[in-house]
């Protein structure tokens, strides 16, 4: 069966179409976080429902871990570990304002920290990628790729806390409150952290223009 291509849902409650936003069968509610809670409740009594949570949040978890680890295989392995731990720990999840994705990314962050302790050689966010800027190809694509590599290298050079906040924001798709719940800071402190990180990035980014 074409598992990866189909959409999984708890019957009647949720479905997922092409993007990451949750929808009901009748209406689209892109900003409503409650569907996750309904699926979590369903998954507690029937683990098969966890599949929807996996499909909905896989990309965000992978992107966050890919940005942290710099390697596809490490990111995928840690993402799978994240969901395995989440499934086991689902009974302990309590609905929180920051939402299920933030809870997942907290597990992902802990898994990445555990892994980096075991493998000190892990290189974060392609820190050396500025070296390879001259690949051939259409000009626009090359420039876009160049900008992305440059930004990833700049993000890699941020202090740890700022880097984590930026990656959670732009890779994991979280807001300041959710990021704060992942890294253990208040929403206001997280806002300041993001502000400082973005200001630093903007300055460096501009310097490279």
């Amino acid at each position: 069966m074409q598992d990866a291509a189909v959409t999984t849902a708890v019957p009647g409650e949720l479905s997922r179409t092409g993007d990451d936003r949750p929808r009901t069968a009748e209406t689209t509610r892109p900003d409503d976080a409650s569907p996750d809670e309904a699926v979590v409740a369903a998954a507690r009594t029937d683990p098969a429902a966890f599949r929807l949570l996996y499909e909905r949040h896989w990309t965000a978890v992978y992107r966050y871990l890919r940005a942290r680890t710099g390697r596809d295989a490490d990111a995928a392995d840690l993402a799978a570990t994240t969901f395995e731990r989440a499934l086991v720990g689902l009974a302990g999840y309590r609905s929180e304002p920051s939402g299920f994705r933030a809870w997942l990314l907290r597990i992902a962050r802990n898994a990445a920290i555990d892994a980096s302790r075991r493998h000190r050689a892990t290189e974060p966010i392609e820190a050396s990628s500025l070296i390879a800027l001259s690949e051939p190809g259409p000009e626009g694509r090359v420039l876009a790729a160049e900008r992305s590599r440059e930004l990833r290298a700049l993000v890699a050079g941020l202090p740890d806390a700022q880097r984590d906040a930026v990656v959670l924001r732009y890779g994991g798709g979280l807001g300041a409150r959710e990021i704060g719940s992942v890294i253990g800071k208040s929403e206001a402190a997280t806002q300041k952290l993001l502000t400082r990180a973005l200001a630093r990035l903007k300055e460096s980014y501009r310097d490279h223009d």
Partner: protein
Amino acid sequence: MTMTEGSTTGSATELDRDLFDALAFAPPPAATAAATQRVAAAIVLASTMHERRGHRSNGFLARLVLSIRGTARRRRAVALLFAVLILGGAGRGLLGLYEGMVGPEGSARTAWDRATIVGASQTHDGYRVTIERAYADANVLMLAISVHDLQNRGWTQVSAMGATATDERGDSFAGSMSMSSPDGPSVAANVAWFTSPPGLTPGQHTLSISVPAVSVRDTSTPPPAESPGVATGEDSWTPWHEVAGPWRFTVPLTVGGGSMVHPQSSASVGGTEVRLTEVTVSPASVTGTIAVSGAAGGGQWLPVGQVEHAGHTYALHSGVLGPDAAITFQASDGTTQTSGEWTLRINELVGSDGTQQVRLAGPWVLTFWMP
């Protein structure tokens, strides 16, 4: 996004966009497939352990899954990987919905493209159920079933996902997956996916198909939490209700073939031996049976890996634990080009020690030949 202070300039907006682009890593398909297999195995084991603890779920999903498992138990095997899926996409028309549900490639696409157009309808209590298409080979049966509330009773959704099928010998096709996608509130396209019974020969057959109930979704009654005085617990509340049938069909169908071999090849890693005892390759799937021995802790194991042949890779997507520790796996697609060398590559075995998941790292690489 909600920008932070000092970041509302055009430059910051551009930086936002560039940061999203820079960190929008696309998961490689192979890495995604491997992770999906691991998580699917974890879900299967969690389901098994959940049931062993005596938990029962009251929802529609659970009832259907349990009915599937009940069938499997009667066959003295426990089906461990399944899915019940409801898709979005109202208003696209039934054909478009079916096309979207089967996807661009894989077993479902192969079965859909090779399916016989049946078009048999039965109406009961104002609900018309139609077997639109059917496909069967040595490994799988696929049924495309539409349901229509002809009286348009105001449900918010309908579905027909609990179909059963037997051949003329009375042997059942074991259910493993159903999908449903609404085309408005009164119509839905459904795809049911079964495992063919042993000994199903190629050629003309007559299938008996039954849809025991149609499900309707009624959101006019709020959950108990919003209804003071309602005694049922929140876990038991569901907006879905069943309308009893059955809707019965007799469907003549040409069953496609398949090639079966008994390789008896084996591979050992770290004292754990995997023996491949049987493989069946059909146009829409590859199935096989393995036995695992020597693994620390014993128990039952599900394989994570793929089957490879002629430059193509077929990911293992389900496992069934049978008697005598035999494990039947099913791959994501099949082929008619069977002849030559094949490889079964098991990257991990996933099992349980009774309290938590246990993973054994491979790879176990087993080769075999198909005629």
